[in-house]
């Protein structure tokens, strides 16, 4: 009997420790960003583009990078959804009689999921060279779209698979076509779609390697798809590399902005998930 109790105690302690480590490091990271970033945080940081001497510690802000990041992550998520929703529907609802085919496609997306983002950056760069696009907002969006498609497809796929067979059968036995069934299933998984958007946006806004070659960097806010665009992670990278203390501090302030943007997106999507969970059991 005592052995069972010890075992229980041992694994419980292990779980508590693991939880403390994970939660602790979250607060450590956020704490570091806050304590180092707050002193350099001011209104200029989020309302101005870099001025002439920004990278040696003079006036300006990172508005160019904030807007650039939002454009790229937002554009890539929208574009990614337009490609991945049809894929997820197709592999789950149109070829489910042939499990082999859909599993091959799933395997392909699993592999794509694991490919480091620098490869997507390089691949995106190749596509750009082929089409004669220079480092621009468009290039960045293409590369990040490639990066987020596997995330979106796999998330949507998992969500669609949680939809009970009975729901599909219910629509089908009323004489619905597959697309009509898919529309009902899409309604059912609306909260899941928002989770997928959240994951892909978070990944897209934080990724450096894929935008390194493709989006370029600019001190101006991009006004068209063909202009180079700055991104927050790259801005952080450049500023951290500076020997000037002021600029390094601003890197942390930029990291703080990035964290807050992600936080806002997370809270917003949670609210939307609640709203769209209506009419569900």
């Amino acid at each position, binding site marked *: 009997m005592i052995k069972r109790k010890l075992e229980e105690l041992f694994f419980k302690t292990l779980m508590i420790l693991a939880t403390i480590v994970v939660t602790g490091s979250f607060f450590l990271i956020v704490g570091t960003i806050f304590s180092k970033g707050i002193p350099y945080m001011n209104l200029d940081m989020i309302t101005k583009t870099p001025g002439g001497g920004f990278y040696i510690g003079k006036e300006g802000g990172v508005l160019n990078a904030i807007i650039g990041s939002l454009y790229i992550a937002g554009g890539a998520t929208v574009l990614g959804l337009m490609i991945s929703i049809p894929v997820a529907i197709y592999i789950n609802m149109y070829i489910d*009689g042939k499990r082999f085919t859909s599993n091959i496609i799933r395997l392909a997306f699993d592999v794509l999921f694991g490919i480091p983002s620098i490869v997507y950056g390089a691949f995106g760069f190749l596509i750009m060279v082929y089409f004669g696009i220079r480092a621009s907002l468009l290039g960045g969006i293409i590369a990040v779209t490639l990066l987020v498609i596997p995330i979106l497809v796999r998330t949507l796929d998992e969500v669609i698979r949680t939809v009970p067979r009975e*729901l599909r059968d219910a*629509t089908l036995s009323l004489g619905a076509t597959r697309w009509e069934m898919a529309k009902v299933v899409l309604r059912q998984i609306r909260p899941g779609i928002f989770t997928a958007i959240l994951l892909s946006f978070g990944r897209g806004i934080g990724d450096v390697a894929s935008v390194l070659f493709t989006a370029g960097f600019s001190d101006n806010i991009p006004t068209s798809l063909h202009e180079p665009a700055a991104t927050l992670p790259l801005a952080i990278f450049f500023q951290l590399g500076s020997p000037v203390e002021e600029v390094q501090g601003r890197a942390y302030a930029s990291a703080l902005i990035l964290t807050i943007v992600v936080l806002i997106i997370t809270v917003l999507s949670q609210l939307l998930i609640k709203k769209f969970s209506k009419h569900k059991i």
Partner: protein
Amino acid sequence: MTTTPHISVQNLNVHIENQHILKDISINIPNKSVTSIIGPSGCGKTTLLKSFNRLLDNIPNVKIDGKVLVDGENIYDPSVEVTHIRKKMGLLSQRPYPLPMSVYDNVAYGPRIHGIRKKK
């Protein structure tokens, strides 16, 4: 009482994942009467019912041989349109599952997809 059978199953064999589920079933189900199919759990009652409106088609690795005639029309004939079969033949599953919409829309869903709109 010798009416023509409403549903007529002829030599129906169903294999799912290489398991022989329905073995050579032949049965005539008469019109305008209640027919009950009884048997122990897992003997294929649901599979038989699902074969009547081709819901079996969506199960992976399924193999169906034989004929199911509804009003004299073989529903497994390749030229038959599935949605047309299912419009005539409803099936309420063991665990009913409401569609993710309001009760009104749930009730109206069937008629709506078949083109009946805004009739209360």
